[in-house]
């Protein structure tokens, strides 16, 4: 297994690559492009995953939804008092929230009703409330908006107020009392916080009802136990735990990037057939060179090795180049166009920033997806080249 790297052979290989510059630059460009597309796709999906994971961590430990005839319906707030009696549950909060479709901009806002005196069900929400003057929610005509919402409203000339259209077609005017930023942009970007009373009014909900109920548990390992108790008490309620959401998010994005990859594999194989074809058709110049090499005492193995160095150097350079370009494209330029493939609802959601999430394992993954495949496509052509009869070249 002794295989010292032969520097002179490496030098020879690099020189040989440069000698056939035109052909190799073409291959380098195409291959760089493929690696670039592939890495961008992976980086985007990984950073969305990271983003969603941090959102999930903010989510309530257990969310309870009521189902009637297979559809989600509102939950009577009276259930809160019974739930709080279950041992292990720390707090139970009824939520009033929903989506508001802003027709003019074609955007969905999440509208959340907040009672400033309640304990908020996520830390993030609590932070926002703590930073603001509570009096905002005492008056029923104010709201807090996420930075994304603010931008959309600005573009539509709502500088300091917004007119909601309530369920019965009346206008409900709310003043913008403040704007919040959040490190977790995906969730908070499209959020509007209003008082619970305004929320009931806009959505036209019964005041004894809530959209859903969130439950906080003192010991996370007891979650499965508590879930089974809740199911016993209220068979019509569906329990969603943090873990359920995390798994389903992961799946969606694995599926999406998987789909993209499958397409990539098809493209890549087409490309490699072209490579194979290009590499097998040796010019008379190349044939002559191989003849000379054999005549001066190179073995078939040496010629194959030289070709291997060539394809490794070429594909590795393209790999690095594609990788760097993708890093710049995704994190520098925020991946224009391509991110829309992954964020299916991007048209409906205000934009957000892609957080940096790349580790060594991703590099290995990308490497394994690209370089070995390229080398594989050159195995047979370089073997064929090495078996050329030198004496036919001499004549």
């Amino acid at each position, binding site marked *: 297994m002794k295989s010292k790297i*032969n520097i002179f052979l490496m030098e020879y290989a690099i020189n040989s690559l440069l000698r056939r510059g035109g052909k190799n630059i073409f291959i380098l460009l195409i291959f760089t492009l493929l690696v670039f597309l592939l890495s961008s796709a992976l980086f985007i999906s990984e950073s969305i995953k990271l983003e969603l994971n941090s959102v999930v961590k903010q989510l309530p430990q257990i969310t309870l939804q009521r189902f009637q005839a297979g559809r989600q319906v509102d939950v009577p707030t009276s259930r809160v008092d019974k739930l709080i009696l279950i041992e292990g549950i720390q707090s139970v909060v009824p939520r009033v929230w929903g989506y508001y479709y802003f027709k003019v901009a074609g955007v969905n806002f999440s509208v959340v009703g907040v009672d400033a005196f309640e304990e908020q069900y996520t830390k993030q929400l609590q932070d926002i409330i703590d930073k603001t003057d509570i009096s905002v929610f005492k008056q029923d005509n104010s709201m807090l908006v996420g930075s994304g919402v603010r931008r959309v409203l600005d573009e539509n000339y709502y500088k300091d107020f917004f007119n909601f259209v309530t369920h019965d077609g009346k206008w409900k005017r709310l003043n913008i009392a403040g704007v919040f930023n959040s490190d977790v942009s995906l969730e908070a970007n499209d959020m509007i916080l209003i008082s619970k009373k305004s929320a009931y009014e806009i959505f036209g909900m019964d005041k004894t009802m809530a959209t859903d109920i969130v439950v906080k548990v003192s010991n996370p390992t007891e979650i499965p136990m508590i879930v089974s108790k809740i199911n016993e008490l209220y068979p019509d309620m569906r329990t969603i735990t943090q873990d359920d959401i995390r798994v389903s998010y992961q799946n969606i994005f694995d599926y999406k990037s998987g789909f993209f990859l499958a397409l990539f594999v098809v493209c890549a194989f087409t490309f490699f057939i072209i490579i194979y074809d290009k590499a097998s058709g040796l010019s008379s110049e190349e044939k002559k060179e191989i003849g*000379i090499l054999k005549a001066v*005492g*190179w073995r078939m193995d040496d010629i194959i090795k030289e070709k291997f160095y060539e394809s490794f150097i070429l594909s590795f350079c393209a790999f690095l180049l594609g990788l760097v370009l993708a890093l710049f494209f995704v994190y520098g330029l925020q991946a224009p166009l391509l991110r829309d493939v992954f964020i299916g609802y991007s048209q409906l959601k205000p934009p957000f920033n892609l957080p940096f999430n790349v580790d060594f394992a991703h590099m290995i993954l990308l490497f394994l997806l690209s370089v070995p495949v390229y080398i594989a496509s050159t195995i047979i052509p370089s073997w064929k080249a090495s078996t050329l009869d030198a004496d036919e070249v001499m004549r």
Partner: protein
Amino acid sequence: MIKLEKVTKVFAQGQNEVVALKDISLHVRGGEFVVLKGASGSGKSTILSLIAGLSKPTCGEILVDGKSISKLFDNFSAMFRRENIGFIFQKYNLIPTLSVKENIIVPLIPSNPDPKEIQIRACEVMEKFSIASKADMLVKNLSGGEQQRVAIARALINNPRIIIADEPTANLDSKLSLELIEILKKLKAENRTILVATHDPLFFELDCVDCVIEVKNGEILK
């Protein structure tokens, strides 16, 4: 030293078979200067490539120093070539984008020797053929005579005992041809065996040539 015994070589060209050599036998002693003469396509190049182990005979045997070349596997025939044979081609067959030194060390690359040793050996042959001053120049920028000396230096870097030249003067003017012959004479004086395949009459009258063999249609004429 070099012995061909009843060697036949048949090439397959599509459906047809072309007989390049017909049952030839040949004997070359160590230190001899032998010229193979004949028109192109007569089979003299085939004889050279068989002796070098570049191709294998269809039947018959080739012995160099009593060792059968025809039965060697690629690994060993390449090793044999590397250690024993120096090739001089027509048109020099250098690699134009490599420097003089890089061209000369090509035969040394596969054995992956110590860079110091490469340096020493390259300097030695470059001195010998007075091209040391051009070591780092690209060969495409050299004159014909210099390119020829680079090609010979490459052939000699492994210090081979057998020099094989295939139509060495085909592309040279008369001045360069004479220069080449001078070099070959020197090599013979160093007791190397020299085989030249050519149809250049310049070689037929030389004093240093021990034997001229005429090849025609794959057979040796006495």
